[in-house]
């Protein structure tokens, strides 16, 4: 494994620094004293999940910098405290990008927080989630040991896929140190078409389009309007644009950024906001509130309803799950079944036997 290759061939930022050893020492100490610690990056996603019960915090923003990046390999390896913006800029300079379009929710967003929450933007159903791009990671487990899983190559099945497991684990299984991600070339051309249609028609439309080989990379619905983003070679984008029809959106880059960053009025105005994850063809949900749909129907945003029980019940009937983004709830993430919780606590225990890493950050149980 060559995560160690310190080929700092990118920007020479004086703030770049490898403080893995001191972070590990801190975790070791916490392990020995059974002191719970809260892992902190840019603090932009604190609103997700629970606040956790740890009083001490471990700041990883000092562990930053791109460790290696060779465009020809389609892989970037960077330290977890690296600002997401730095990474995206580095990639953009070589005509590449993180294809899962991570939301920032604030300028301070770091790579670590992005992976730990496994968030992805509108491209998710077409290109994949953050977890789909994780190739390898260096972590500190709950005993303070520095461990490396996966690698910097496209495929690697040696050992369990623990690096991917870190995605979405909210730091409860390990402190992310370095992450290797697969990156992709930016599309050569992009346009967005809008159509007036109601939600039922939009769902049908999404399902039909999903079965056709159109170069679609985002599909969103809000307030009687469907937005489809087409991307790829300019020839195929304009061909698709012609066949699909609709009206072209002028500043589509800003539009999709607003969708990704929840800057559309639906989000900014809402006192309570729920994220409902469902199978894409799920019919219009019979739940009160204002709705928007992303991910070709697989993601439903619900504003203005704080009936936790009612929402959870409804969504479970549809085989989906509900996360609260804003507002009150007894469990912010969707509760786990008894048997699943048992597996989770055993797994947590395997990586963090003293239960010191972000305890209570996901669920009260671990």
């Amino acid at each position, binding site marked *: 494994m060559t995560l160690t290759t310190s080929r700092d061939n990118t920007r020479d930022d004086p703030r770049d620094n490898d403080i893995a050893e001191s972070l590990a020492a801190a975790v070791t100490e916490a392990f020995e004293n059974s002191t719970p610690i809260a892992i902190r990056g840019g603090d932009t996603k604190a609103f997700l999940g629970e606040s956790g019960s740890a009083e001490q915090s471990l700041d990883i923003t000092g562990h930053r910098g791109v460790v290696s990046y060779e465009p020809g390999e389609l892989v970037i390896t960077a330290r977890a405290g690296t600002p997401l913006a730095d990474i995206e800029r580095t990639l953009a300079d070589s005509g590449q990008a993180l294809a899962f379009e991570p939301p920032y929710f604030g300028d301070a967003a770091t790579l670590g927080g992005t992976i730990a929450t496994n968030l992805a933007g509108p491209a998710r159903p077409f290109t*994949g989630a953050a977890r789909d791009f994780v190739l390898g990671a260096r972590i500190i487990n709950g005993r303070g040991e520095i461990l490396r899983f996966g690698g910097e190559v496209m495929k690697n099945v040696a050992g369990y896929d623990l690096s991917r497991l870190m995605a979405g684990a909210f730091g409860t299984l390990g402190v992310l140190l370095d992450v290797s991600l697969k990156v992709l070339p930016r599309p050569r051309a992009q346009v967005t078409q809008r159509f007036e249609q109601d939600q039922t028609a939009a769902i049908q439309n999404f399902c039909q389009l999903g079965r056709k*080989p159109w170069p679609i990379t985002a599909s969103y619905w809000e307030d009687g309007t469907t937005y489809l983003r087409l991307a790829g070679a300019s020839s195929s984008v304009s061909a698709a644009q012609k066949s699909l029809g609709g009206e072209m959106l002028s500043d589509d880059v800003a539009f999709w950024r607003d969708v990704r960053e929840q800057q559309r009025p639906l989000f900014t105005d809402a006192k309570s906001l729920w994220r409902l994850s469902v199978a894409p063809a799920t019919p219009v949900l019979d739940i009160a509130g204002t709705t928007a749909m992303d991910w070709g129907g697989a993601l439903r945003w619900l504003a203005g309803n704080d009936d936790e029980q009612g929402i959870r019940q409804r969504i479970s009937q549809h085989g989906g799950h509900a996360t609260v983004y804003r507002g009150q709830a007894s469990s912010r993430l969707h509760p786990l079944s008894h*048997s*699943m919780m048992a597996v989770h606590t055993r797994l947590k225990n395997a990586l963090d036997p003293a239960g010191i890493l972000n305890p209570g950050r996901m669920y009260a149980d671990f």
Partner: protein
Amino acid sequence: MNQAASLFDPAEHAERASPPDKPTIIAALQAQLPAEMILTEAEDLRPFECDGLSAYRQVPMIAVLPATIEQVQATMRVCHAMDVPVVARGAGTGLSGGALPLDNGVLLSLAKFNRVLDIDTQNRRATVQPGVRNLAISEAVDHLDLYYAPDPSSQIACSIGGNVAENSGGVHCLKYGLTTHNILQLEIVTVDGERLTLGGASLDSPGYDLLALMTGSEGLLGVIVEVVVKLLPKPELAKVAMVAFDDVRAAGDAVAAIINAGCVPAGLEMLDSPAIIATEEFVHAGYPLDAAAILLCEVDGPAAEVEEDIERVREIVAGCGATDVRISRDATERALFWAGRKAAFPAMGRISPDYYCMDGTIPRKALADVLIGIGELSKKYGQRVANVFHAGDGNLHPLILYDANNPGELENTEAFGGAICELCLEHGGTITGEHGVGVEKIDQMCVQFPAAELTQFHAVKAAFDPRTLLNPGKAVPTLHRCAEFGAMHVHNGQVPFPELERL
């Protein structure tokens, strides 16, 4: 009795309380399952003694061929209660000995689970039993213009359960990902016979990504009894360029050049001369028999884009010294170009009685160097090698040709294989890209991972299977084993695990 015996670490089983004797176990199983599903005699068991890696063989104590999930659960409960290890088996096409049975264990065949249960066109997913052949999924949804993307070369025969257990890739995973990227939900039976659902109907699910953890876990964490796979729309157009080179280095460089140009082909595969000759004899795909290497580069997507990109590919490879470029004219010719690639491993049977397939993955930029390095090792070990591999992913498959009937040749082959693994590691790669560690690369795991990582793997295993009854002895070596291996094998002047006491 054979090679496999030496691969097992007696210490792994030493602490087990001695399990009940065979007749008692058989009786307990017979109380739960129809008698014809339980095989107990050598005559019936021998056909199960190996998978696609026939160099390692072990007749299981018992084989069970259940047909329902309840029967799988019952089998697991009996084995759990009696402390009998269980090895799951899908289609037995694995190339790392993952489904190699245990002489004191039950071999659990999932081959009777061969039905597609549901096709959900609206949500673009299919629910299938674990024994369903990979290709059978795409065939079942072909009329809907959908398909299941990961396509291992063994796709005609390998099972989806095996694919999940190995996180199999295929010739199109550069663009479409591995198994882990293409499944939505798994139904598993745990070591104590419980059913668990991982993942779900939506694109993500609450809690940890257990779907990712289970994928590629080589049957060590649970038995997969149902899989929901993602279906993709068939691309509007796909074209494959067959590019010939008279020099392997030029072919390797062309791979890097294509990717560097910002092109992500759907598939980018390479065959070297011995591989070309063996496969051409079977498929008659028109591969140039005098080329040192050929690349198969496929682009797919919207028609206009494909036409544009295939021309770009043509220009790029011409700049890299290609001696000939042929672009598939239609779907039939495209299928023909691929047919050779997909049949390449077993076609080796035409030029050699046995082959040993390696699976190292390296950064693409090291392709040419590693290929040349393998050529040198081939001379050193005195054995022929054919290369057929996923060049776009940097996933090598050197096929070491040998004759198992010649005493000592297998051992020499294994040593050669080990050297190739280490060459890959030296170039920043991994010992296995898609075939899994199984029993075959278990020693090389000691080279790839330090003790702390291995210990962590064992802890994760214990969270699912504390008594190590599921496929013990595979995928993750014990530290004890690594210490022994290290004693025999000094790597770059450094003994792995110096801190462990040697026996």
